[in-house]
């Protein structure tokens, strides 16, 4: 079975590297980026199944990045993560990804894997 291609974007480099490694151990194919701009560069060269985005990124936000990516690839699925607890962020993130595709940090890895499988249709 073809591995799910995941693009992970979080401005905390150590978090992005480690989370990517943990997802890889669980059989996913993961690339990571720490800015929206570097994520878009990766995105132009490769087809991804799902993007896991931090809501708050420096410069272009995760929600704005989602809009750019969705324009280029309307089939791409999204999951948002955030450490922020404000109502404003929750509304922005859940409106962009759907409330059920919005995870709070620290993220539970098994919940994230389950969510990834769910959004790409690997789980009924």
């Amino acid at each position, binding site marked *: 079975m073809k591995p799910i291609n995941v693009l992970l974007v979080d401005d905390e480099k150590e978090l992005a590297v480690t989370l990517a490694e943990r997802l890889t151990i669980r059989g996913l194919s993961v690339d990571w980026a720490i800015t929206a701009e570097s994520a878009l560069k990766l995105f132009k060269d490769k087809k991804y199944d799902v993007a896991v985005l931090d809501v708050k990124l420096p*410069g272009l936000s995760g929600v704005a990045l989602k809009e750019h990516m969705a324009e280029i690839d309307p089939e791409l699925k999204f999951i948002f993560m955030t450490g922020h607890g404000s109502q404003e962020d929750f509304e922005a993130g859940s409106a962009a990804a759907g409330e059920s595709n919005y995870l709070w940090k620290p*993220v539970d890895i098994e919940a994230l894997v389950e969510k990834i499988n769910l959004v790409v249709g690997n789980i009924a």
Partner: protein
Amino acid sequence: MVDFPQTAGWGILRFFGRISASISHELKNSLSVVNENAGLVEDLALLTAKGRSLDIERVKSLSGSIRRQVKRTDQIIKNMNKFAHSVDMEIKSVDIQEYLELIAAVSARLLAARNITLKLTSPQDRPSIMTSPIFLLYLFWHLIDCCSRWAEPGETLHVDYRGEGGPISIQFQGCTTTNPDFRNDVEGGDLSVLLTLLGCSLDWDSAQPGMNLSFQNNLLGKG
């Protein structure tokens, strides 16, 4: 007693709220990194139990990362504690550099969200003034917030002060707007209240461009 108008109360509460939220975000990020590092150590242990050889260097690197995050979290909490205690005394002797460093640290995340970097100079002399610590921090935040909104993303703001042999003045430089109506653009409209209260004046420096904050009131004295 410092007489701060009730009408400006929401401004300072918003300031406290924004900074507290920013600090909580920083703490969440740091905990998230620790969470993933600990989780990866567990993953590697499980893989080793299944027969895969253990990458000792990777484990050492994860342990180092956890230590770095603990150190980072400790510093965030120290800053949060100092910020919280800024309301303990209405007036006290304040080391200007220390308070500039504090406001830079606790607002770093808010500025990073706008892709703005803040740099402070480290002068050799460190003058202190008698003033209200929380209102001084609030004023510094007002000015840094304004400059960051007037700067282009990716820009660096510079803050430095002069006090040798004369009145203390602080320069906030790096705005890209050349002629802003800066007094009206300050969030909340508390600027004139703060300036009066702290005995300061504010001038636009079109050469840099940026703002010069000067301390004049006899409430203040170099200590």
